[in-house]
């Protein structure tokens, strides 16, 4: 590259202008508008409002109070709010000795337990189903539909069906367990010890078929020559599975695990149907807690702070996934 050619280059504003094609931006505008309206704007509002104490179902008469939040000085104010409390909700989350903190950690524990059980189990089942269904036999289409069927049901209908299964005395689930000699508590959805597991069971049943579709697609795209070579080399079914199939499917696994984890944080429908009557918190998941604090307890600031926490968790998970898949691509 020689210096004279640089002199011949058009002035910068001209080249900028030449690159500016307005049409793509115009076409993007509606999307940007709705993303702003329904994602960006609420995100920033919830960030701002997580610092505002507002409890509209409490009386608006002034009294001496610290609002029950750590780091908030006692002074004469209304219990109703709104009051600016800064990061008091997040300080409360970090301190399990406060009422809010204790509740927060119980919800986080439930949510974590829910995620680490539903995600691996439903993924494992999805993979097994996919392997079983990835063959050409008569009627395989029906079998695939049977496994995919739970996915097509809305979660609320699925939960309602399961609510009936979980019914004491005549529920299918209990009758089946009785055949295996189970004599424990029967009413799963309102029993503090079992309610969370009833949510886990329904979520696994509902999701395994959905994740199976991705594995099935992945399996059908695998190159056949590798398997032929492996067979010539005398590799058995197990070593083919663990040395060829699983490694080749790792991108599918990564994708499925991401949507599974994010999905697990975002489901609430089955909790509203199944464990709504269990009001003692043993089955409360993060999103359900947000709903409860906002609509049942009318503690707006707390609901907003919980929402910020949830957004932060999902953001970290998404970024982790991005980093891992980038590294794998390199």
């Amino acid at each position, binding site marked *: 590259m020689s210096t004279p050619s640089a002199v011949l280059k058009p002035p910068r504003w001209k080249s900028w202008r030449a690159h500016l094609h307005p049409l793509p931006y115009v076409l993007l505008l509606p999307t940007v508008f709705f993303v702003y309206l329904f994602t960006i704007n609420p995100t920033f509002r919830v960030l701002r409002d997580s610092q505002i104490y507002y409890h*509209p*179902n*409490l*009386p*608006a*008469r002034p*009294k001496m*109070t610290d609002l*029950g939040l750590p780091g908030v000085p006692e002074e004469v104010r209304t*219990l*109703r709010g709104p009051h600016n409390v800064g990061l008091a909700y997040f300080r409360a989350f970090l301190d399990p000795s406060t*009422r809010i903190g204790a509740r927060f950690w119980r919800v986080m524990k439930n949510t974590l337990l829910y995620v680490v059980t539903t995600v691996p189990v439903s993924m494992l089942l999805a993979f097994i189903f996919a392997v079983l269904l990835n063959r050409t036999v008569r009627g395989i289409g029906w079998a695939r539909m049977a496994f995919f069927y739970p996915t097509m049901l809305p979660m609320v209908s699925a939960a309602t069906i399961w609510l009936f299964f979980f*019914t*004491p*005395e005549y529920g299918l689930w209990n009758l089946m367990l009785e055949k295996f000699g189970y004599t424990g*508590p*029967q*009413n799963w959805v*309102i*029993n*503090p*010890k079992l309610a969370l597991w009833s949510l886990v069971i329904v979520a696994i049943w509902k999701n395994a078929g959905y994740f199976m579709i991705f594995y099935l697609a992945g399996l059908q795209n695998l190159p056949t020559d590798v398997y032929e070579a492996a067979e010539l080399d005398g590799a058995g079914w197990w070593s083919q599975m663990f040395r060829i199939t699983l490694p080749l499917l790792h991108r599918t696994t990564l994708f499925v695990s991401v949507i599974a984890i994010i999905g697990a944080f975002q489901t609430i429908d089955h909790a509203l149907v199944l464990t709504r*009557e*269990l*009001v*003692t*918190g043993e089955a409360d998941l993060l999103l359900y807690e947000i709903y*409860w604090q906002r*609509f*049942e*307890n*009318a503690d707006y600031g707390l609901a907003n702070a919980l929402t910020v926490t949830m957004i932060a968790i999902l953001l970290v998970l998404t970024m982790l996934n991005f980093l891992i898949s980038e590294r794998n691509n390199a």
Partner: protein
Amino acid sequence: MKARLGVVLTLVVALLAGAVAVAPASAQDPIKVEVYFPISVDSPITDILNGYAETYEADHPGVDIVFSYEGGYGDVKNKLLTTMEGGGELPALAIMLATDIYDLRNAEAIMPWDDFVSEEYLSDFFPSWLANSYYDYDLDGTPELYSIPFQRSVVLMYTNMTLLEENGFELPTNWQELAETASALTTEDRWGILIPNSWPYWMFQPFAIGAGQNIVSESDTEVFFDTPAAVEALQFWVDLYEKYNATPAGVQSNWGDAPGLFADGSAAMILHSTGSMPSILSKADFDVAVSAVPGKDGGFATVTGGGNLYLVAGTDEETAQAAWEFVEWLTSPEMAVDWSINSGYLPTRMSGLELDAWKAHVEEVPQAADAVDALQYAGREFSVQSLGDVRNILHGYILKVLNGEMSPADALAAAQAEADDVLSVFK
């Protein structure tokens, strides 16, 4: 470009002008009184209410009654509060839980009825129905009336009398008899008694009252969870399965399943709402007795429940007046009785019992009279400030006891301490 903008602006202005020109015509329209209402029982509520609206409008051409069905009680409350916050069009009336009075008034969602009601009007309501209607929000010593009783119920004990008589039992009159009868009637495929404990406070209150003390008083900032009466009541629940094997152990019985199990003979006695009476009586092929719950040493106890009519805050004077006139008609003795007969809720007006319609109904369904009878033993339903939180505390500890994790005394002492902590901010 500018010219086009001009055209658009002209169009917008023209449209707006058109809208304004049309608007005055609507001033001739009748006054609209919208009512948000929930459905929580198994009767054709929508048909009944729409029929009432038609009847009323026929006599009052200047009023348009619109019943808006919004789901359950929780949905009505959430819809009202969300609409209020979003600045949407609000109804004039809403039927919401009697126990939500503090939440609703604190949220500035409701207005008092005091300017409309007369002493004479109020004195004809069964006093128990009004126990959750007053709130002294401004702390001036005179509580205001915020809700008018409408769809009300109590906890009833339903008894399979045919079965009891076959086995030589009479209707139990105290806890001892209740436990022994239930125990004797328990077989391999039948429970002596079912007490749904998925929403425990409502079923718990009749026992606490029956042992001598309710878990709430008139105060909105005080609870009585750890009294000897409450501890005895919870111990009795435990005894029913531990000592008498008369009911499923632990957290068991579900609200929705109990009436069906009773009606098909899988339970000799159940505790349930008056609201389930029509469906139980239509399904059961045996003699059903209803009563309040026997007290510890005799006597009876029960607790009220259900929804009241609230006047939504911000309703303009003209609409509020129209709404009140409709409410006055809707809660008149004649209508209260008609509503009770058709919906399964209890009558709200004492003079309604003198009407021929009620007498004819009682002739046909004698249990209805017994249900009204139970009302005299009803205590005030559990309602305090921060109800969601305080109720959750009580529920949590009751379930801990039923799951065998704590003794009734320890659990209720802990519940009292936690509830006091929540309520301390109001004192």
